[in-house]
């Protein structure tokens, strides 16, 4: 079994000061794994914070600096994009709750520093979903899934509508109306989380989730959905959020534990605390871990989940994989679907995805150059 602590990217994030002694060959793996895990800019920020960036050899430092630059631009772009979304939805008067990356950036949390992201996620009241979608369409966003099956799948079974892309800017927005799908085996009380959202000062109808809910949502997203391509990045988000909130406020831990029970998310929180500590060495008080055990699955299942998550939370890179990594990722993908839909539907959906040919979407991220 892979030792998660030994993966160069993980070692780089957790023992940053040791990096100044790395050889160029070691740096080669660090840069590759961090790029694959989308934490290259985060590593640059950490090095800069410890005042060590200048002591890194030039060749790897160039990649760190470039990634940092791209991340800072994205941070600015999020501001502009959120403004556009706000303008588009102004007439509807709907409160907009920013989720994940956009929330971290707009709330100026340390989690946002060096974090790269693609889409903007928002959460709105379910009963206002149609108004929101209509207003977005009116302002140039169009759906990205034209297949009738995909449309039905999202609308019937998911907690979000199909992603919408802006015609001119090419930016993508994911509109959620709940934290978990309605049919999910682990269901969050979305209403409670929506009600507790806190306004972003100076931003009108913009909100972010309350600190505990932000952590719970991040954990839910990572541990219930099946795609962990940016797993290490998302785990680092949780690490950064809980470290930040618990340092700022002593009562954070007890509120977090109570809140998990209240909204029904003790299972994802258990995983989040277990794997941030195991992989990233996050400091979590022993009593918190002891309380979190209430959310643990039974022993045999936990051993299996360890085997799966400790592999899938590695950088998605050939040098951070053993012969079971592919299987682990696949099993978590199937589990993600199993958790969110009834069994018969799961079989139908996976079969459909497996046999769908030529429907993959190319990301329009790059200018072609020849």
């Amino acid at each position, binding site marked *: 079994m892979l030792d998660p602590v030994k993966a160069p990217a993980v070692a780089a994030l957790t023992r940053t000061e040791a990096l100044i002694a790395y*050889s*160029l*060959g070691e*740096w*080669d793996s660090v*840069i*590759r794994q961090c*790029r*694959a895990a989308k934490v290259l800019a985060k590593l640059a920020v950490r090095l800069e914070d410890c005042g060590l960036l200048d002591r890194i*050899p030039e*060749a*790897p430092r*160039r*990649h760190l*600096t*470039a990634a940092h*630059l*791209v991340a800072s*631009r994205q941070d600015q772009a999020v501001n502009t994009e959120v403004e556009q979304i706000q303008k588009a939805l102004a007439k509807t008067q709907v409160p907009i709750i920013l989720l994940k990356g956009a929330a971290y950036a707009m709330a100026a949390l340390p989690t946002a520093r060096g974090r790269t992201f693609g889409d903007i996620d928002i959460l709105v009241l379910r009963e206002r979903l149609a108004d929101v979608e209509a207003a977005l369409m009116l302002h140039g966003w169009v759906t990205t899934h034209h297949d009738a099956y995909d449309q039905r799948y999202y609308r019937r079974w998911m907690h979000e509508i199909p992603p919408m892309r802006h015609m001119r800017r090419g930016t993508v927005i994911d509109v959620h109306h709940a934290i978990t799908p309605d049919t999910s085996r682990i269901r969050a009380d979305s209403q409670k989380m929506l009600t507790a959202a806190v306004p972003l000062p100076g931003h009108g109808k913009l909100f972010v989730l309350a600190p505990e809910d932000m952590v719970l949502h991040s954990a839910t997203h990572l541990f219930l959905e099946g795609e962990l391509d940016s797993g290490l990045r998302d785990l680092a988000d949780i690490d950064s959020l809980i470290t930040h909130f618990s340092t700022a406020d002593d009562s954070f831990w007890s509120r977090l534990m109570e809140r998990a029970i209240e909204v029904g998310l003790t299972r994802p929180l258990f995983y989040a605390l277990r794997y941030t500590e195991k992989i990233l060495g996050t400091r979590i008080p022993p009593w918190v871990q002891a309380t979190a055990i209430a959310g643990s699955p039974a022993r045999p299942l936990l051993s299996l989940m360890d085997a799966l998550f400790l592999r899938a939370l590695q950088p*998605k*890179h*050939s040098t951070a994989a053993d012969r079971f990594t592919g299987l682990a990722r696949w099993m978590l993908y199937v589990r993600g679907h199993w958790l969110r839909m009834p069994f018969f539907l799961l079989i139908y959906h996976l079969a459909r995805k497996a046999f769908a040919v030529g429907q993959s979407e*190319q990301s329009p991220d*790059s*200018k*072609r*150059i*020849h």
Partner: protein
Amino acid sequence: MSFFNSLDETLSAQFSDTGITLELAPFIVRVYTDIPSVLAGLQLYYSEYPVLGLSAFADFHVSLRRPRSLCRWFRPQVSFEFDGTVPFKPLPYEQAYPMFEWGLNWCIANHSHRFLMIHAAVVERDGCAAILAAPPGSGKSTLCAALVSRGWRLLSDELALIDLATLQITPIPRPIGLKNDSIEIIRHFNSSAVIGPVVHDTRKGTVTHMKAPTDSILRFRETACPAWVIFPRYERNAAVRLLPYSKARTAVRLAENSFNYTLLGEIGFDALIGIVDQAECYEFTYSKLGDAISIFADLKAPPLC
């Protein structure tokens, strides 16, 4: 430091297995492939570049392989990977070598933000560089190939890599892409040019590459001062014309042809303005390469270079 002059079996196995690290300064690239046309292309175009050991830091790990799909049995394809990610759809197998060049361009253009990168050919004489910026089809590469056949040093056929602080241009003298009619034109213009196998029916038509002159490769560490920004245009039967071009328009056109101008923000703007300030800016129309060569021979270096 070693050079691979003959591609023996050990070297081929290494390419397929651990990859071979080439110092295509300013970038170190590790290439993994088992495709004969790519190996032959690397041997033809890159044999004069230093080969580094496996412990070297590589900027880009790229591989060219036949994808493991059912397709491979009736329509063989080639897939370009940048360290495990696939930025493009696979191409027909015959296009493997051009795909290596295109893929590497993509890697550089998307990651090398210590430079202001402009889509342009760059040639040098006496330390002064001419940036030939133009959209595809305007004869930029043909002109570039002709100039380096007549004593100009090749800095790049695709990318002007401009240092953000010093404005100096860093060479990356890789093979020059030639397409369609320009292949025969260059063969006639320079009978000693090393031109590789021709690949038909690509997205850009018939393509091949001309090897960078040995002298340009050996001097890959010598940067050059941007002296001229020239927008060339091939026009059938046109009389040769070199006309001064507005600096403001030059700045706008260079920005439009840059890969990372917006990303760089203020430092990118400063570099761009710096270049336009110190360089002479021209629009250039030509129909005969011979005329173009004599016009370029008469270019006077501006005072700052």
